[in-house]
């Protein structure tokens, strides 16, 4: 079956993030989006609105914390949700951690309105970023 258009737009946004092209990635996020960043570290929490979401990416980058995608294993999606199966690395001045992650996006009119993240290696991320 052909790839769902929501899968194509999510793939383009994730690839933009990988290249550091935050403008293209930002264009895929709805103005009233809600971002759920898992864990108990200082960048975790719920962020409401694109300005706060992008601000959080900026704050992380300024602190030398970087999320990179080692592999986009698969992207599965439908009319309402897109799920990306990922292998990610979080690097910080104190070290780095890698593992499997799942990104769940709620999509409306081609833009992400909500994000839920899951990291299989959450405890390592929490330790690194605490």
């Amino acid at each position: 079956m052909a790839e769902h258009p929501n899968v194509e737009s999510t793939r383009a946004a994730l690839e933009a993030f990988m290249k550091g092209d935050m403008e293209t990635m930002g264009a895929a996020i709805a103005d009233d989006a809600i971002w759920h960043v898992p864990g108990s570290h200082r960048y975790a929490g719920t962020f409401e609105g694109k300005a706060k979401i992008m601000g959080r990416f900026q704050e992380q980058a300024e602190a030398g914390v970087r999320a990179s995608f080692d592999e986009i294993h698969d992207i599965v999606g439908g009319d309402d949700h897109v799920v990306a199966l990922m292998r990610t690395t979080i690097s910080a001045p104190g070290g780095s951690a890698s593992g499997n992650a799942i990104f769940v996006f709620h999509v409306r009119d081609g833009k992400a309105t909500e994000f839920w993240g899951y990291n299989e290696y959450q405890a390592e991320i929490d330790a690194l970023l605490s």
Partner: protein
Amino acid sequence: MAEHPNAALVRSGYEAFAAGDMGKVGELFSPEIVWHAPGSNPLSGDRVGAEAVFENFGKLMELTAGTFGQEIHDVVANDDHVVVLVTQWWERPHPYRGSSVHVWHVKDGKAVEAWLADLDQAASDAALTP
């Protein structure tokens, strides 16, 4: 777009599970199914083979004293993966309600691998530990 046949297949498995029809659930499992349960609770860890997975289901029912329930929020699928967004709850050993992501690898109409993820893993670990 029409639902992918793999999505319909997995949905039928959840319906059979809810109805307690484990015979039907078993028909959808490859005998060599590999099951990855997340976290650090009595159900966590890898299980290999349909028999071991059913043992884990039995343990879940025992641990939650029959109070386990789940409801599908959405199913997205392609030729390789089916992702189920699900809300789960139970009352015992400790009350819990939360969101999970179940990633199924489907091959030739059978589930060959399942990766489970609870979005708030710490909460489900605590609620499953007597």
